[in-house]
């Protein structure tokens, strides 16, 4: 069962890619989808301007709420509900950008010495770029610089550049590609390079959505539990297996419910001491191994 687990997670992640690219009507309409579903966001970062995106991006919506100065009650409420049940699981199981980072990380000796201040950068991207700047300038600053936007929206639109039927002229007017576009491309190239040598750098040092979910890891229904048998890395023969397998490079035994944990559950497949607990608060339920949880 354990060897299957990794492929099950990859399949679910691929489903996330499929879900976020459902709208193929753009190919026939030659213009951005502005359907009703664009007011509903997916529970992870994905560019709403992607030609095939049927849904909105949660951070894109947050910026729009800030720009029009409306408090996002509905957005916070429905994202919080998801977080209260599964914590940051969407990052580990369905986020397409998480999948891209997982697939791109290939370094045998990853960069470990990372400046400590980078850990706090998601706060800057959430408060400054996603709320404060849109509030004062009415521009979506995070979206303007977001590498996901460049990869799945900016570059495809520039390359495709169809004739917009409503105006009769190209979607990307000549001369409209300004220096911000080139800055975006440079940011994207920097991110792609970082993905190869650092585990999920975008999730750890940038993603405002991950920061939001991280508040729920301690209180969510799905939790991790490290059993008594764990010798805290001492018996792992030089390589701490849970950390080696963890896409966020966490030592799971230090804090099984760390705010950074994306609940991918890969550590369960690696070490028998790590178990998953899924119980309604107030009701006790024993910790389960990966196989027990999969059977359930």
């Amino acid at each position, binding site marked *: 069962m354990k060897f299957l687990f990794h492929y099950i997670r990859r399949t679910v992640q691929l489903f996330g890619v499929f879900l976020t690219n459902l709208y193929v009507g753009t190919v026939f309409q030659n213009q951005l989808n502005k359907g009703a579903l664009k007011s509903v966001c997916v529970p992870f970062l994905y560019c709403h301007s992607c030609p095939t995106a049927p849904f909105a991006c949660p951070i894109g919506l947050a910026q729009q709420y800030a720009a029009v100065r409306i408090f996002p*009650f509905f957005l916070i409420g429905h994202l919080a*509900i998801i977080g209260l049940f599964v914590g940051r699981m969407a990052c580990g199981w369905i986020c397409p950008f998480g999948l891209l980072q997982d697939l791109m990380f290939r370094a045998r000796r990853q960069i470990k010495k990372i400046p400590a201040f980078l850990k706090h950068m998601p706060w800057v991207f959430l408060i400054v770029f996603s709320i404060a700047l849109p509030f004062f300038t009415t521009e979506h600053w995070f979206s303007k610089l977001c590498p996901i936007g460049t990869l799945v929206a900016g570059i495809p639109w520039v390359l495709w550049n169809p004739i917009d039927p409503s105006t009769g002229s190209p979607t990307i007017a000549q001369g409209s590609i300004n220096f911000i576009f080139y800055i975006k491309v440079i940011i994207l190239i920097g991110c792609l390079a970082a993905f190869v040598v650092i585990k999920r750098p975008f999730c750890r040092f940038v993603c405002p959505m991950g920061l939001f979910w991280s508040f729920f890891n301690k209180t969510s229904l799905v939790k991790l539990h490290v059993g008594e048998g764990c010798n805290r890395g001492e018996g792992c023969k030089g390589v701490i297996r849970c950390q080696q397998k963890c896409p966020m490079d966490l030592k799971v035994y230090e804090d099984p419910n760390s705010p950074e944990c994306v609940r991918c559950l890969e550590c369960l497949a690696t070490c028998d001491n790590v178990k998953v607990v899924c119980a309604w608060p*107030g009701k006790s339920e024993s910790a389960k191994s990966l196989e027990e949880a999969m059977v359930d």
Partner: protein
Amino acid sequence: MKLDLDEFDPVDKRERSNGTGISVLWYSLVIASIVFMVIGIFAGNPFIDYQTASTL
């Protein structure tokens, strides 16, 4: 007469009280989230005029 050791185990007691605290917090947050969603619906949040940001 049997002695209930659990009663004298401070660690267990602490865990138990922490668990109760978490469950109260969890249910309160769920209710607060649902209230937020309802307020959002009445405030017209899901029908916000969502013009997509420029990708360039």
